[in-house]
């Protein structure tokens, strides 16, 4: 115990412990959130120095206004065809999530995580990047794979850990790895992908390549040391990388305040590192697209990294293991001031006269059918715990490129023991 100093007549110190604005049973308020008018935030030239745009870390890039009209300097002016594809990809992601969440509830797999309410973050980014750019996602950017047209059946095989799972049942559901889609193996350990993305980008620059990297993590994950290591390397080597923080307001039960969100924005984390930093309306697909496109242009022009905070809301539980009713107000999702990303893009297309209610309803039916058909196909390969897994001895493969004697011996022993036991 520290020696007590002589009694001081200074006022006693106080420890501040953050409290979220609302707990279960309380009315949800987002009064503390300032939502600037769409189109208001300026768009600097992408060749500008980071020091000349620090204000953007405290602004909010918004393109779609309250009437879902696209306004202001960040309007990416996308052709209706691209808008419709982004809309469909978001709807497909939502339908996929819905079905796989239910599959977990039916005991067909051990675990699932939805991206409900934050689909625009992944979908719009994937559309703004080149397919050759390398992605280092967290577990909540399934939308990237869907936007890159990856086979839903393949994703489901992984979720079911079945005999057709390319990851051989070795990895937890949804922790995909899809090299062919330039999508890095997802880790369950938070934020480890950030320095890895920076390293990939540095390598690409060192080799005179033209591909850039992008990575994502939640606002809660910015507390990990890896976040800060990544920012330092990205800044020092001006790595061609886009660093995305998905601020969906909640980690598991702890709100953004426990990651420092009460005192500043997450985008402002970049300022101390001298990294160009944007804060973006994450439920506005056009704003996410525009910000990603801008950051990609910087990276490709050797202007270095960009950090983007996507301001959004996690409308579902953290995972199938979570019950958000135990820690946050149930009214929050509907009180969320930035709306729903699918509805906002739909309304925008409707306003343009490029969409109608019937087509929207038909699209919803089609994506539901597409997911259902994929699920049927995937379940032919088995679901978790029903015997249709990879052969037991595959467990020992892939620890090393070549299997050392001790693993060969352990494999043999396992098979002998199971045989002796009559199994």
């Amino acid at each position, binding site marked *: 115990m520290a020696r007590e100093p002589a009694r001081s007549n200074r006022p006693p110190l106080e420890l501040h412990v953050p409290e979220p604005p609302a707990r279960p049973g309380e009315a949800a308020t987002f009064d503390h959130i300032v939502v600037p008018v769409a189109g208001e935030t300026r768009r600097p030239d992408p060749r500008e120095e980071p020091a000349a745009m620090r204000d953007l870390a405290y602004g909010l890039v918004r393109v779609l206004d309250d009437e879902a009209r696209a306004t202001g300097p960040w309007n990416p002016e996308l052709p209706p065809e691209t808008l419709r594809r982004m809309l469909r990809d978001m709807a497909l992601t939502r339908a996929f999530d819905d079905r796989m969440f239910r599959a977990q509830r039916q005991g067909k797999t*051990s675990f699932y995580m939805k991206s409900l309410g934050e689909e625009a973050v992944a979908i719009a980014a994937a559309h703004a990047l080149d397919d050759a750019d390398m992605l280092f996602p967290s577990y909540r950017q399934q939308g990237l794979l869907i936007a890159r047209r990856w086979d839903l059946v393949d994703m489901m095989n992984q979720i079911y850990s*079945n005999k057709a799972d390319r990851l051989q049942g070795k*990895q937890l559901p949804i922790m995909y790895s899809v090299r062919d889609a330039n999508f890095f193996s997802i880790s369950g*350990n938070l934020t480890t992908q950030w320095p890895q993305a920076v390293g990939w980008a540095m390598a690409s620059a060192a080799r005179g390549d033209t591909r850039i990297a992008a990575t994502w993590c939640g606002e*809660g994950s910015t507390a990990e040391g*890896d976040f800060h290591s990544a920012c330092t390397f990205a800044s020092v080597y001006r790595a061609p990388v886009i660093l995305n923080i998905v601020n969906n307001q909640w980690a598991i*039960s*702890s709100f953004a305040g426990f990651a420092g969100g009460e005192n500043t924005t997450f985008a402002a984390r970049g300022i101390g590192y001298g990294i160009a930093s944007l804060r973006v309306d994450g439920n506005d697909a056009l704003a996410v697209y525009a910000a990603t496109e801008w950051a990609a242009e910087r990276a490709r022009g050797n202007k270095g990294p960009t950090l983007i905070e996507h301001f959004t809301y996690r409308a579902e539980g953290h995972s199938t293991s979570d019950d958000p009713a135990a820690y946050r107000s149930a009214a929050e999702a509907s009180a969320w001031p930035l709306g729903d990303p699918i509805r906002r893009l739909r309304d925008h297309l409707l306003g343009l006269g490029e969409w109608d209610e019937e087509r929207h309803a038909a699209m919803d039916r089609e994506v539901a059918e597409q997911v259902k058909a994929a699920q049927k196909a995937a379940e032919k390969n088995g679901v978790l715990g029903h015997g249709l897994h990879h052969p037991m001895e595959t467990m020992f493969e892939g620890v090393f490129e070549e299997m050392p004697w001790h693993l060969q011996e352990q494999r043999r022993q396992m098979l002998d023991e199971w045989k002796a*036991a009559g199994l």
Partner: protein
Amino acid sequence: MSEANETHAGASEVNETQTPVTSMTMIQAINSALDTMMARDEMVTVMGEDVGFFGGVFRATAGLQAKYGTHRVFDTPITECGIIGVAIGMGAYGLRPVPEIQFADYIYPALDQLVSEAARLRYRSAGEFTAPLTVRSPFGGGIFGGQTHSQSPEGIFTHCSGLKTVIPSTPYDAKGLLIASIEDNDPVIFFEPKRIYNGPFHGHYNRPAASWAGHPDAEVPEGYYRVELGKARVARAGGDVTVLAYGTMVQVVLATLAEMDEAPDAEVIDLRTLVPLDIETIEASVNKTGRCMIVHEATRTGGFGAELSALVQERCFHALEAPIQRVTGFDTPYPHSLEWAYFPGQVRIREAFKRTMED
């Protein structure tokens, strides 16, 4: 501390005041230990990811924040390195921090603060500063948690001088050992076998889960008592073979013996504390039985079983009638779908018994 608690025999247990006994799960027992210690010592401080308002993802800290306030039970940023570093600083001030690492699989970012700092603070400051932390963390597999919710990293910590490593296998021990750990002035890694949080696992993942209700080792005093660190427990007395185990595997070994045809009369020793180890109990048992089997879920190479095997060989060589057998997790990451082929369950324990009893 005066009267010994007779119901759970052993001079190692001290019960200050006889208090009512309740049937508790291991989670409830851990919660009760934290509650008991927070009430006794206002320096005891609980911190970690989701431990505050929510009460922990496994509910181990449920109700504590409402009872003791946000200065003594609080959520932390998601940085394990930060959690342990901050806990060391709080300990230097004079608090008695009980940080939780949400899963043992997430303890690695904290390794530097644990291994280079907490473990050596007493030594390098010649006792000026100490790190009286108890780092609680659920560990082990059996819940289809894949490679990041299943690991048993105890061997990393037992290898590092200056850390105590404690692992309970029953609700009664969980509470008594946690209290002793919190009162200990050195850093303790307290790994909680999450598979037996709610019942004593028999090793059959596809049979209904057992419950702690009605189990004699789930009879837990409501008040204060200690199970001293460094004292093993004879979970089952026997004369044919000594089994050294801890955590979940104690329960699986006991169930295997109960279900096995022609089971050997095994003496099952629940180590309870890996460092410091109760070498006397181990030696006495192996010298009596002449055979030894070591069971843990952690990977094999360089695991704590290797240390146990070396010790038994060094100290009981002349008493040994058969080679020491190790039943451990394989030297692979914990697979998701093949979890039950990986888990060192009844099949593998039975075969090892046969081999040990052969010669």
